[in-house]
């Protein structure tokens, strides 16, 4: 069982959601985060004082899936999200030791 953390630009969420759906993902969590990376931020101005905003709004999509789905997801997310400009985002992969469905108590793969 793996957890994927997919960091994307906010406007790409709908497309990523449908990719995940196609790859057979059964659940996900979405968090608003502020990201910092190769993409540069921008300058803001308030009453004549400039300030750098080096954090940009990103969306973090987390989903726990069986290991065999990872390839499908990585492949297809790249397909719809990659624009070729810095800031497209990252996918991080983690091991998951267990999952429990609170409603039924099922655990492991059948809890997904």
């Amino acid at each position: 069982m793996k957890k994927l953390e997919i960091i994307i630009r906010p406007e790409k969420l709908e497309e990523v959601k449908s990719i995940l759906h196609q790859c057979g993902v059964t659940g996900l969590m979405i968090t608003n985060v502020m990201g910092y990376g190769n993409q540069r931020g921008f300058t803001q101005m308030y009453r004549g004082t400039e300030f750098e905003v080096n954090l940009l709004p990103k969306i973090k999509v987390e989903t726990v899936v069986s290991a065999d789905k990872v390839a499908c997801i990585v492949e297809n997310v790249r397909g719809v999200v990659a624009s070729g400009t810095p800031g497209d985002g990252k996918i991080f992969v983690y091991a998951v030791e267990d999952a429990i469905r609170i409603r039924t108590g099922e655990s492991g793969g059948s809890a997904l």
Partner: protein
Amino acid sequence: MELSQLLNIVWVMVGSVLVFFMQAGFAMVETGFTRAKNASNIIMKNVMDFTIGSIVFYLIGFSLMFGDSVGGIFGGSGFLSPEKLGLSVFADLTPPVFIFFQTVFCATAATIVSGAVAERTKFLPYLIFSAVISMVIYPVVGHWIWGGGWLSKIGFVDFAGSTVVHSVGGWAALVGAAMVGPRIGKYVKGKVNALPGHNITLGALGVFILWMCWFGFNAGSTLGATDELGHIAMTTNLAACAAAFTTMLITWIRYGKPDVSMTLNGVLAGLVAITAGCQVVTIKGALVIGVVAGFLIVFGIEFIDKVVKVDDPVGAVGVHCLNGVAGTLMVGLFANYMPGTESAITGLLYGGGLSLLGVQALGAASVAAWTIGTSFLLFGILKKTIGLRVTEQEETIGLDIHEHNTQAYADFMVK
């Protein structure tokens, strides 16, 4: 100075201050009904159209509207110092009182456009359009109807400006929204999407502000303290109520639940529709006008949104254009002013025949032609030259950051 003149001055001052405050109402409605990332930009457009409008209307627009008539088409004297004109209404009030009242009226027409083109229009072309509507487009119509021009001569009735103010703003809004195109994400592969506003509470505050100020708009248009103020307030209020209630019922039936933002638009629709006839229709007539406005706003906004596919984020076209025109026409049906006297104005339903309705239709159509034509020309030139629209990336990130390097809600957003 005569006491009666001073009393008129006081009343028109009160009315003017109320009409001025409509700027706040429009600003809140337009901001509340659009997205947070464009809030500062909408605010700025609202402040600037009033600011620029006030200056150019004083210097030029007022004279085009009320200067000595050139063929009934526009005024041709008084430029730069309109207070030196010899208008009879200047003697009834004082020159600056009347100019002040007309200034805040003019600004109302200009500000209607900003909501319809919100969330994707560049700042500079908006400012230019706004200057021209206050300086030329509105004053010419104003001359026709209120400045002694050709429509006023043939008995066209538009007491407080369903046509002069609202339809001018509304037609320009329609042309602008159509030419600047829909927001990204509004129409995707034939599907119509909703892009909900970010603060319905503020939008509602804006509606309440406008409602209050409309009593100054309509009852102030008497230009003096008269025995008609109460009647105008009653027709104004009950038309708004009937329209809001009708809107709520229709949305409840059509959508399964009463729709909040549509009902708020319904209030404004009723107010716009009664504006032309508030003085000349009966209280019951006002209720009927309100009901009609309620139907118009729901089906009108849906039609514009889903059939014509013009993206109007705040419903400005439905509110001001459709109801401005309809309100003007309904005067031809419902007018029943001083029946039996010399000053009688009577619509079709009160035995006045078709003539008034015909004049009303002619006026509404002429104003539509002029406003659509000039707006189309102006937006067209702006599109060809500086361009009307921000880039896709700028629109996505928001006009606040793009146009003003700022954000409206710093603590709730980017840290």
